Structure formats: C-alpha cells, structure tokens
C-alpha cells in the first residue's frame, strides 16, 4: 500500500472514533483518523464524563450488563483518568421509592464486579449528614457509586495509543466527499484546515463515527441514515458544591436529573430536547437553565446561591426510534453496514465506546480477512502502567501536592516526564492556570507531544481556563507559550486569545449572573479595555455560533 492508501479510514475523533482507530491499529490494520476539528472537540466534550453502570436502563438488561462490564474494563485500562463518585438520591415523595425499588436490585446485581457496594437505603438523618444541603423534608435516601472519566483525556489517549500502534491521526481535516470504489479502494476527500489544501486518500473501508453528523457523512456516500438528535445542556458551578453526586427524579417533569461534582467543578444536567439545529451553533437556552435550577431546587433548595460559571450544550446521536419520549429511546447502539465499504454508528453512550469499537473492528476484520483478536479491554492506555506516588514526587521536584495530584489525574505515570523538564528549566514550575492548576512544563509538554493547534485544544488536554475565572487570567499567558513553542506570528498570538475568549464566552453568556458578571467585567477590562483587542487588525474567523442574528 502506498502512503495514501489505508485499510480503514475512521471519520470522527470523538470517544467512538478514537476507540475504533485504536482497536484497528492494535489489530495491525493500516488506519487513518480524520477529525474536522480537534480530538474530543464536539459531543463527547459536553457530557458529564460518567461511565454509567447502566442504572437508568433497567428496561434493557443486556445494556446494563454491557455497561457494567465496560466499567470494569475502563478501570483496568484507564484508572488514572477515572474518579469514583458516591451518589445520593434524596427522596421526598415515597412513590418515587416504590416506583424504583427494582432499580436497587438491578444495580446491585453487578455491583461486585465493579468493586462498589450494593445500593443502600438510608435514613433521612444519614442522608442529611452526607449532604447537609439536601432539603430537610426528605423521607429517605438511596446511596450508590458511579465512575467518572475525563472524556477529553480518554479520547486523546485512545488516539495517542493508536498512533503508538502505527495509526495516522489527522486533526483539523474535514471530509468533504467520497470517490467510488475502484479495485477495492474508495477515495476519501478532505479539506486540511491547517494547510488549507484539499487532500485525498484511498481506503478499503470507511468507519463513520461522527455522532450527530453521521447522517451527513452517510449522505456524502449516497446513503440515507436516520438519527434522532437530542440536545442536552449542563450548568457548571465554580467548585465542588456538593459532597457527593445528587440524582433525582423529583424534577420539574419527573425526568432524572443530576448534580455531579466533576473535576474541580460541579455539573447540573441535563436537559433533553429533540433538536434539528446545527450542533455547532447550539448553546443552552434560558429555559433550559431555569428548568435545571428549578428541578434541582426541589432537592437542593439553596442552589441559586452557588456561583454558576458557564453552561455547555451538546447533541446525543440517538437511534431513530420515533413516536416515543426521548428517555424511552434505546441507549444501545447500532452498527449500520452500508455494504459499499462504509460502516456507520448510531446511538451509544460514552461507556460503550470501546465495545462499539470492538464490534465494528470485528466486522472490519471479517471483511478484510484479519483474525487478530481484540485486546483493547486489557491493554492499558498510556499513563496507566503503574501507580504514582505523589508525595515522593512532591519532595523530589519541589512542587506542591495539589498541583501534582491534578497532573496525575491527567497523566498517570507520564507525570515524571513532565517533572523531568523542570530540572533544566525550574521556571517552568510556574503555575499558569491557577484555577485548575496547571504548570508551564505540562503546557509545553502537551504542545510538543499532543498535537494541539489552539488554546481550546490545550484546554481539552489540560483543563486550562475551565475554572471559576474561565481563563481570565491565563488566556494570554498560555497563548504566549503556545506562540513560543509553535513559533507563531504576532497576529496568530492575538487570534489565539480572541478564539479562546470566543469559545469561553459561548458558554459563559447564557447563564451570566452574580459573580460571573464581575468576573467577565475583569476579562473584558483586560482583553478589551487594556489589550484593545477589539481594535486589533487581525484575521479573526467568526465562529459558527457567532454568525447571524
């Protein structure tokens, strides 16, 4: 095969696409990943990161079983980027307990393999002791545990591991069309947004893992694919405002909603609205924000005193089951074999991404006559090879344990490579993003090793700018480091700042209130009033959500 010929081209660098490219590469297939933006830049980045035990899907026992097994696998291959959250369901209305008694049984059935206790019923006193913000009128509580993964790191590690196994990863390459199959190869045409050139590769099989865009890609191949797109929005608070995760069905309309501590923040979600909008332009609406606040207020009455920093909204690419409510649509996935060398996914959840990849790679291997077995469930992702002793590293490198613990949660064993860089350059121990926190050495390491192009790409890799200040104080610092490492022009430095402010603003704006008005006044004061960036004569490309009225 020539350099531009592949066994498999995977389109889409989300959780599924990166899982597929990893699996294919590990089985020795010559694989290319094409992602139109950055790894994990769309749907997966707007989820809560829960690798769900399948609790909500009692109606689909085979899915519950699959979810539980996948959780076990994730803890085996990626435990360094996983956190366990205890979760409470405070109950005010007894009928909720009655209606969900079965939930406890089904959850507990597979609890042991995930190494979590069975679901427990608690007294109101015990519930309030665990989470004192709970409404005093509760009559009982339910306790269980779920695992949460850093979805950005998961996708990136899958992509990097695929690359380690010989795959080619191309971000910022948008597929624009296909050429028909000749001699067992079809052409995939794409626009390289970094070079500005149209490029073409030839491949035996194309895997369409583009989530809410799956029907568009299928269409380019001349195939109709039906999807039920469903919008979900989250509100993000400035810190871990609850001791444990809270879930409740006693919401505005009786849907399950949750309040999950996540990394250094707390997520309140989610809404579920059937949508036909362009996923690139979606932002949380005022109705969604108030729906979520009102819903959780029944259980956490003081929620409005907490500081909201932003919102995020994404699209679930559900299986096209119509004429039923959204929460009755299967959370399973389907592999659609279009029989022209194109295979598409619909449906699925984050927790299933590895399973989905295995299923599709099995199919690809069968087609190509490859009989290597899947090993993605046993081979660790980079960084998960060993335990990391933060205390010793803290003493050895003179960096505080909090910084190192946050770095460990992203890096696992890789942390040592970053810390080694500070021996020659002790000034790189400087904390650049103070919210997260992130030190300069890790930023430089990520730029050198993880192919970011923009500050947003660095945000996904490092969580810079995701804290209470939303990048107010670090945007220009990180932009300068990026510009130094990539040897960018002065204009690019300013555009990077503007791009990052634009992306942060997209989420800040819909929920802007209270302290965040002061925070944004400071940001505007810096980048507009002092930096005068609105008057700078640079080539700024409007973002999809900035266009129109």
């Amino acid at each position: 095969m020539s350099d531009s010929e592949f066994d498999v081209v995977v389109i889409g660098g989300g959780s599924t696409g990166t899982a597929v490219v990893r699996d294919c590469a590990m089985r020795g297939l010559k694989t290319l990943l094409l992602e139109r933006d950055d790894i994990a830049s769309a749907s997966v980045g707007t989820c809560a990161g829960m690798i769900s035990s399948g609790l909500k899907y009692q109606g689909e026992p085979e899915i519950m079983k699959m979810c539980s097994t996948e959780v076990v696998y994730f803890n085996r291959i990626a435990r360094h980027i996983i956190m366990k959250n205890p979760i409470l369901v405070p109950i005010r209305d007894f009928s909720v307990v009655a209606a969900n008694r079965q939930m406890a049984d089904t959850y507990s059935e597979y609890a042991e393999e995930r190494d979590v206790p069975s679901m427990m019923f608690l007294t109101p006193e015990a519930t309030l002791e665990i989470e004192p913000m709970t409404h005093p009128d509760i009559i009982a509580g339910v306790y269980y545990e779920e695992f949460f993964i850093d979805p950005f790191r998961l996708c990136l590690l899958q992509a990097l591991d695929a690359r380690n196994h010989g795959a080619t990863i191309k971000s910022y390459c948008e597929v624009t069309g296909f050429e028909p199959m000749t001699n067992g190869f079809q052409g995939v045409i794409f626009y390289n947004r970094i070079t500005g050139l149209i490029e073409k590769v030839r491949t035996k099989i194309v895997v369409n893992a583009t989530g809410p865009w799956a029907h568009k890609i299928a269409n380019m191949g001349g195939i109709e694919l039906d999807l039920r797109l469903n919008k979900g929005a989250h509100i993000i608070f400035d810190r871990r405002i609850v001791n444990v995760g809270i879930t409740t069905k006693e919401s505005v309309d009786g849907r399950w909603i949750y309040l999950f501590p996540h990394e250094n923040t707390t997520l309140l979600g989610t809404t579920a609205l059937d949508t036909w909008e362009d996923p690139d332009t979606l932002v949380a609406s005022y109705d969604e924000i108030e729906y979520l606040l009102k819903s959780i207020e029944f259980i956490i009455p003081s929620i409005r005193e907490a500081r909201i920093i932003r919102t995020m909204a994404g699209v679930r690419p559900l299986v096209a089951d119509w004429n039923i409510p959204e929460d009755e649509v299967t959370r399973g996935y389907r592999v659609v074999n279009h029989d022209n060398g194109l295979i598409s996914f619909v449906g699925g959840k984050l927790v299933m991404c590895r399973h989905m990849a295995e299923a599709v790679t099995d199919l690809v291997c069968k087609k190509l006559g490859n009989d290597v077995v899947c090993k993605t469930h046993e081979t660790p992702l980079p960084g998960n090879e060993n335990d990391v002793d933060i205390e010793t590293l803290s003493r050895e490198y003179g960096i505080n344990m909090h910084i190192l613990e946050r770095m460990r949660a992203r890096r696992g064993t890789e942390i040592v490579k970053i810390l080694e860089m500070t021996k020659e350059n002790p000034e790189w121990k400087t904390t650049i993003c103070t919210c997260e926190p992130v030190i300069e050495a890790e930023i430089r390491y990520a730029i050198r090793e993880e192919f970011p192009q923009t500050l947003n790409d660095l945000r996904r890799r490092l969580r810079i700018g995701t804290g209470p200040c939303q990048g107010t104080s670090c945007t220009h610092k990180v932009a300068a480091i990026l510009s130094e490492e990539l040897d960018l022009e002065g204009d690019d430095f300013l555009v990077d700042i503007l791009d990052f402010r634009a992306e942060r603003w997209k989420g800040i704006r819909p929920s802007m209130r209270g302290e965040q008005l002061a925070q944004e006044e400071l940001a505007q004061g810096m980048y507009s009033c002092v930096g005068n960036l609105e008057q700078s004569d640079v080539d700024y490309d409007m973002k999809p959500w900035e266009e129109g009225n």
Partner: protein
Amino acid sequence: MDLECDLLVIGGGMAGFVAGTIASNAGISTVVLRKGQSATAYSSGAIDMIGYLPEVSEPFSSPEEGLTTIAGLYPLHPYSIVGYSEDVEPSRVVAEIVERARGTIAWLKKYLKDTAASLIGSFDYNVHPITVLGTTKPTCLVQETMFSDSLQQNEDNVLLFVGLSGYPDFNPSAASKTYLEDRISVGEPPRKVGRCVLEIKPFGKSFNLSSIEIARHFDHEESIDDFAAQLKIQVEQLGASHVALPPVLGLRNALMNKKKLEEILGVQVFELLGFPPSIPGLRLQTSLENIFKREGGKLLVGHEAVGYNRMEDKVTSVTVKAPRRKIQINAKAFILASGKYIGGGLHGDENGIRETIFDLMTVTRAYHSASGILPSRYTNRLSISPMGQPVYSCGLTVDPKFRPVQEDGMEWASNLFAAGSILTGYDYMSEKSGLGVAATSGYSAAKSAINFIKEVA
C-alpha cells in the same frame, strides 16, 4: 456607634477619592468608605479619557477632539451631563463639557505630582502606550514610569522587550512580535525590536514570581543594581535605544528605579501597560488614598454600606458593616461611587440588574429600565468587539447635579449624588474612558455636593 460628617463617599476608587479630596480641600468634613480593593487598583494605572467613539475604529487624536464629539452626539454621556445644566448657556455647552474634563485632568496631574503615581500627558493629544500583549491603546495620561517621549520619533530606534524568568504575566517573545508587526503595518518606527528574559537576583525562588513580590523587591534600595548589570549586556548586544519592562518597577520607588536604569544603561526605560494584579493600579490607588488623607479626609477601610435611613427628600444616614461592628454614619450629603459589578455597586441575576445599597433605578444605555432585564439578554454574541457588551453600560442615570433620578425623572433624594462606573451612558471598555469618567464625574459630583452642603448650612 454613630459617626458624624458632612459628606460620606461610598466607594474608594478613582471617583470616590477625587470627590473626597475635592470636598476635604473645600473644608468639608469627609469620610470615604471602602469595602475592599477598588477596581481602580486593578486598572493598568493609565488614565483613559476618551479613545474611541462607540463602534468606530479610528481613535481620537486627543481627548479634546473626543470630548467635543461626545458632547455633540451623546448629551447623556457622563462627560456631557455638566454641559446640559440649566445654568449653562446653549452656546457654552460643548465648551463647558470640554473644560470640565480638561480641568479634571489638570487637577489630577497637580494632585498626583510627586506621588508614586505621578502622571504625564496632555489633554491635547492621546498617547499610545504599549501593553503586555504588544498591542497599543489610546490613553490620555500615563504614570511617569510608563512614559517614553521618543520611542516612535527616530527611524533608528531599537526596542528591547525584557521578560523576567518565572514571571508568567509578561512574555517578551509574543509581545515583541505583535508589536513589531503592528509597527510594520503602520509604517512607523521602531523597525527593530529584540527580547530577552532576565533573572531577578538575589531572589528566593525561580518560579511563580508575582508582580507584587517583584515590585516589593525592587522597592529595596539597590536591588535594581544587579538587574541593571544583566540588562546592560542585553542592551549593548542588541544596540537598543529603548527598554520595555513589565509594570513591576516598584510600589514606592518605581520612578527612582526607572531613572537609575536609564542612567546606568543610557537608554530610555519604561513600563508596559499590564493586567491585574496591577502594580501601577495599586500605585494609583495608594496615591489617591494618600492625597485624600493629606487634605484631611477620613478613610474607613473594610466597611461596607448595607442600609440607609431617609427623612422626606433626604438620606440622613448610611448603615455600615465591618466584620466585627455595625455603625451608622450621619451626613449632610452622600456620594455613591460604589462601582459596577467588580466594585459591587451593581448586581445582576435572573431577576434583573439592581443597585445594591439604595435600590436606585437602573437603566440600560438606551435608558430603558434595567431592573427586570436578564443580564445575558443584554450582551452581544461576539465576546470582544467594538460593540462591547451592553450589560457593562447599565447603571444609574443622574440629573445635571449628578443626583440619581427615579422613574419620573426627578432626583431620588436631594442630597444623594453618584459618580464613577455606576453611571450609565457609556462603555468604558470600548471607548477607553474608564478612569477619565470616574475622575470627571467624581469631580462634578463633589462640586454639587459641596454646593448643597454650603446651601443647607
């Protein structure tokens, strides 16, 4: 416990201290109340008057030109208010507005002379200092430490950007490229720039250096010497004629350090415009505080206004809270200079935008009520653009005496005045007019309050 004074100023930023100092100077017993750090301390320390007309990209060449334009186009702009008073003849409107602003600038320069924030610049032209990003912005006055008169004069000038190792707030590499590209595109000198990163010695650590600790270090006599020696090598290597430093030359001795560096290096040295935490902002804040106290004013720090009493058309007292006490301050007149969202003068949430102490009427820049608007609805889709963010133009509307008015257009109280960023009618970020409006409105509100107090007495 009660406290008595003639004038209580709520808010200790630029507007509050200008008002307080003018009142004290006029023999009025004045108390300034300051809750915490003011937004003035977060500022770059340069005094913007007017840089741009809203949504226009060509900057004004001078505050005079800008004020003349604003006076004609925006009669309700905080700058314009003084011109549309009934005791100003129609032919004198623009002149009155321009003169008030010019007078304020002259006043500021005079009062801040020989302080740590002594100012340089003129009402007759805007200057375009360089920021830590390498961009420039139009402003009226800069602190002397930030001033260079010859940078853009000579074709052969060479500017050296100097960073400090372990200090992340300024990156000379990115800034020097940005600045040079800008110079090339406008076709003006300097045509050559350089950059270097120096270590601050002797210093306890090699990373996480903050502006404050560097400034304090440079405040120690002779601590600049080692830095100068390192810098001299770089200056000679590049053949630099000018040196740009991040704004950290000292909280007290910055000007002395600048002069010392210039003497040792034989080149012009200046500080860039920076971001918070801002040393020039702190110098300005401290200097304003000092001149106020010098004029006999009393400053209550760490005290927050939480309530008030009124009798008929007058506010009689304001209740003030500190961590361990609550006091009532009785005064003849009050000036509200509590700032916008950073200062805490305004608060916005899903129920609307409100003034936090007296619950005064808030309006948008279009003078519609802001008391029920959703803050997010009053923003633009573009984060940073010449249109600004309208939610930062919401605030109080005042009569020509700077008294906040209510729905019927009449003043809310006869002895309550307002100044600074709590006022509506302008967007300080895109206009580049923040501290200028604060100073000018503080000046005007003080004049009105003084007159009121003297009349009552």
